[in-house]
Structures are given as structure tokens and as C-alpha cells.
């Protein structure tokens, strides 16, 4: 699998790729600071998007996600029980990337359907466990050569990603070191605490309120004030000397109170209660 990913990453514009099976990263080619542990979390969030969309078009087997951000793309291909994640820069040629993705998709499908392949997967649930419990056992050497005949080193005890090992093969490489300790949960214990940040909420600077919270406040104030929430929020943030991306956690309460003041008296309490539940 490493060989497949190395070949894929030679495509111009592709900056990294990984193959995951639920919360296990089977193989990856990533450049720092990207790391498999990030992609496990990304996969979990993308699958939540999939679950959310089921209400629109019913339950269907989702195959591909194409996510375009300001600074790059994330492409997810679901191939049977495997998840192929590809990271690209923004200046890519879409037809070229599409071809590269189709090629690796076919190769992985062929491998999974190959009679030489007696790999089995644990049917573990899709929801991602807390980061601290993820075993990040990457196969450091190429484990499945082009003939797909070599055996695979043991990943973790409960994952049966093991074909039968012929006795003539060398012993597997040692297991990699375990994950570093997880990031501490940041819980504001002050009396004005309105928000406790989960690990997935921690942005690059954990002392700032995440954008997801700001967005929810924008929607909430738009509904109550019947005006463009973004304009209202920006004005309120400017008054307290912050921006949407640099609002300190300890000022969140102040922002909510400031927003409530533009509403009629009878709506303020309801707004504050709803904002506290974000």
C-alpha cells in the first residue's frame, strides 16, 4: 500500500495521502505537520457530514467526498472498508487528480478482490474513539509488495489485518512507539463559563473561541434580529477589540451580552439561554 501511495503522491499537486480502516491508519505518505492522527479525526468528521446528508437523499452508499478549502483540497474515497484520503494544494489540475484517484481506486479494489489476499478486517464501529485510545501503528516498510504476497506485520492485537505468514519470511518490524499524550481539555471553570472546548474544537490557538461557535452565534443572532448576523457580530467584536478568529474564550460571555442588548427586552433572555447552549 505504501508503494501505491508513493506513486500517487508523485502526481503534481498531491501533497499527501493515507489509507485508513475505521480508526486505523494502514499506510500513509504525509509531510509534516500533517500526521495520521489528524486524518483519523478528519475521517470521523467527514463521516458525520455523510450521516447529516442522509436526510436529503436517503441512505445511499457514499463513495467520494471532494472538499475544497481556501488553501487546498481533501478528497476521500470510500473503497469497501477502506478510506483513501488525499490532500492536495489549491493549484491542482482537477482532471489529472481525478485520473490519479481513479487509478489508485482501481488498484486498491483489485488488491482487495485478489485471490492472494486473505486479509480480513475487524468490523469495528465507524465512530472515532477518543484520540488517546487510537493505536497509531503505521507500517513503516512497504508491507504489501507489488505481488501482494508478503505478510503484514502485526498492527494491533484486535485487528486481524494479517494474512497467513509463510515461515521463510523475516520477522515483522517492531511496533512503532505509542501516541503522545492527548491534548489537555481546556475547561474554563470560572462562574461565567459558557463553553467547554472539546478536543475537536481546539483550533490552532486553544485560548480563542473556535470559528464553529462564532458561526453558530451568527446564525442565532440572524434569526433573532432578522438582520445579517455577520455584520452584527463584527460590530460587536470590534467594540470589545476582537475579531472572529481571535476572540478570547473569557470574552465570549461579554460578546453574548453585547449581542443581546440589540434585541428587544423580551427576546434577550431567550437569546442568552440559546447562546449558552451552543
Amino acid at each position: 500500500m505504501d508503494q501505491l501511495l508513493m506513486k500517487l503522491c508523485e502526481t503534481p499537486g498531491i501533497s499527501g495521502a493515507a489509507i485508513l480502516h475505521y480508526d486505523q491508519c494502514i499506510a500513509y505518505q504525509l509531510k509534516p505537520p500533517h500526521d495520521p492522527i489528524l486524518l483519523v479525526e478528519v475521517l470521523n468528521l467527514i463521516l458525520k457530514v455523510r450521516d447529516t446528508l442522509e436526510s436529503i437523499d436517503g441512505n445511499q452508499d457514499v463513495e467520494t467526498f471532494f472538499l475544497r478549502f481556501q488553501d487546498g483540497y481533501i478528497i476521500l474515497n470510500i473503497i469497501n472498508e477502506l478510506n483513501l484520503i488525499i490532500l492536495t494544494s489549491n493549484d491542482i489540475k482537477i482532471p489529472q487528480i481525478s485520473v490519479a484517484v481513479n487509478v489508485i481506486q482501481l488498484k486498491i479494489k483489485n488488491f482487495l478482490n485478489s485471490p492472494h489476499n486473505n486479509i480480513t478486517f475487524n468490523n469495528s464501529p465507524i465512530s472515532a474513539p477518543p484520540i488517546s485510545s487510537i493505536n497509531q501503528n503505521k507500517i513503516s516498510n512497504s508491507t504489501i509488495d507489488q505481488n501482494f504476497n508478503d505478510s503484514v506485520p502485526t498492527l494491533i492485537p484486535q485487528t486481524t489485518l494479517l494474512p497467513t505468514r509463510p515461515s521463510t519470511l523475516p520477522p515483522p518490524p517492531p511496533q512503532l512507539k505509542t501516541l503522545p499524550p492527548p491534548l489537555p481539555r481546556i475547561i474554563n471553570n470560572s462562574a461565567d463559563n459558557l463553553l467547554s472546548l472539546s478536543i475537536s474544537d481546539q483550533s490552532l490557538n486553544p485560548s480563542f473561541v473556535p470559528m464553529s461557535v462564532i458561526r453558530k452565534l451568527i446564525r442565532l443572532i440572524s434569526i433573532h434580529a432578522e438582520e445579517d448576523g455577520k455584520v452584527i457580530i463584527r460590530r460587536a467584536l470590534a467594540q470589545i477589540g476582537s475579531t472572529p478568529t481571535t476572540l478570547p474564550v473569557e470574552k465570549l460571555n461579554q460578546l453574548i451580552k453585547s449581542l443581546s442588548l440589540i434585541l428587544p427586552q423580551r427576546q434577550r433572555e431567550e437569546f442568552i439561554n440559546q447562546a449558552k447552549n451552543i
Partner: protein
Amino acid sequence: MSTNLRTLLASAPRLDRAVEGAMDGSVLGLVGALDGESAAAVTILAEDYLAEIGELMGLGEPTAWSVSGARSCYYIVHGARSFAVVLGAPTKSPGRVLERLIERWV
């Protein structure tokens, strides 16, 4: 607004339904047999997860995305004040369709 949506539907073959939604979840326009309110509301919910992904990976805000399944493809493109949700038949190159939609919408 439905004129813009029809322009989007003409971007690629087999796109047949579209809705334009505002950031507060209200429906600004609709073409085709689609529950516009649900589509808009669900899209906004999904956007929260995508925004988290963008933060996690240092890629910034989501600007457009697509989801391809066995029966349909689902595309979302962002504008300055609204977004468009477009549904169509499955395709092997959703990225290309998404790029065309982005060009027509922005």
C-alpha cells in the same frame, strides 16, 4: 434567483435540482423536485463539520464541496451571501463538475 440556479444546472449534464440558501437557513430559490428547506438546513449543519476540518488541517474555510453516492451527487458552492446546493446523477469526475459550478456561481 432561480435564473442563477438554472445557469448552474446547465453547467454539466444530468444536474437536475438546485436550491439557493441563505446563511441563516432560509431558502432563496428552488429548481426541481427537492425539499429546499431541509437541503439548506442540513447543508448548514454539515458546514460546521467542514469548518472544523479546515481548522484542523490548516486549510482555511470550506468554499465548495461535493458528495458522490451510488444514486446521486450532491454539490455545494459558496457565494458571498448565500450558497447553492445542486443535485445530479452520479459521475466519475465530481471534482470537474464542482469546478464548473464554482466558476458559474462566483
